[in-house]
């Protein structure tokens, strides 16, 4: 193993560690992702209490963030299942407004999928 080889190994190692730590830090964020069908339309910081409005299939969908929790407060749908669901706050949880094609996901490091 000559000097150049060692240098190369060190450089590659540094790049790997950098990339790895980047993904680690990104995942720690306390956020909710809002999708319309497959399009990410909003990233919400759960540490800020605020009301958001997004466009769903049947019109406006009103989303509320309160004390690190998130819920849907108003939407136009036959059974209002997603507003009845109430607050969610744990990573891995989601709210799905099927008629409005709106999906609110709290990303999880731990869970890859959930059945319920």
């Amino acid at each position, binding site marked *: *193993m000559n000097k150049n*080889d060692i240098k*190369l*190994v060190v450089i*590659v*190692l540094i*790049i*790997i560690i950098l*990339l*790895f730590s980047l*993904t680690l830090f990104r995942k720690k964020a306390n956020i909710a992702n809002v*999708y319309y*069908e*497959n399009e990410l339309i909003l990233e919400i910081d759960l540490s800020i209490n605020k009301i958001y409005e997004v466009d769903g299939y049947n019109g406006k969908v009103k989303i509320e963030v309160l004390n690190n929790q998130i819920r849907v407060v108003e939407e136009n749908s*036959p*059974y209002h*299942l997603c507003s009845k669901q109430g607050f*969610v706050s*744990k990573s*891995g*949880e989601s709210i*799905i407004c*099927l008629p409005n*094609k709106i*999906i609110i996901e709290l990303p999880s490091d*731990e*869970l*890859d*999928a*959930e*059945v*319920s």
Partner: protein
Amino acid sequence: MKKILLILLLLLTGCGKQEYSKNLFYMDTVINIKLYNVNEKKANEAFNYLDSLYQKYENLTDFYDSNSELSKLNNDVNYEISSELLDLIKIGYEWNIKTNGLLNVNIGNLTKIWHDFRENPVSLPNLDDVKIESLKMENDKILNDKVNIDLGAIVKGYVTEKAGNYLKNIGIDYYLINAGGNVKAGKSNKGYYNIGIASPISNETFEIVKAENISVVTSGGYERFYEYNGVMYHHIIDPNTLYPANNMKSVTVIGEDSGLCDILSTTLFLMDIDEGKEFIKDYDVKVIWFTNDDQIIKSDNYE
């Protein structure tokens, strides 16, 4: 030396590998598909195929769409159906026999009454005139004079199994499909997936299944309960009592075949827990029950 570099570079590319995710909206649910270790072109090709696959089976089996093939058969038992729909109905027929009539796909008349009640829960439905008949078949022919088939207990798992097989056949081994509480997982880059099972009472995860090449299906769960006069009603109807089953709060089946897990989860939801424990001894699956008094019971082979 070259080897070390090669390994390091492999690690590096592993970090940069893309994940492709797509949501499909069929069968009254969101179907999320994640593909790993593929290029964009192949991922899109797979998404397009799977979109048309789920759509095709929705068009075949949608009980509440009068244009579906199934509705046409329910209107006229002599209607000529496709081999795809026939295959599903045959599975329903076989399971009706295996479960002594407990898993009965021919109770669409009854599931519709409860469906209408859920849409408009004014008063409990009158079930006096409801007659239950099992499917009768011989040589791929339906012998009943009239049928009322609802394939809701079967079709999602069945198509999801097909979806997984398709991905494998085109060389995509690393994937995760979540069809609304019906998870099918292929291989995983980290060697396993963490699949959470949500509690039917709190919405939190009470168990995590760590595995790859696995299917996990839950029946019950808080999502499809509905309340009337303080009583919880479920969408899974017991053909013996004509009422929503009330043996447990949820049951989860873990096994290889998504179609089998889907059928078994509905079947077990209709059985009391001891009966279910006996029944699954014939199948290579693991089961978790969430009882009415909020206890968690696992099958003997569960570790």
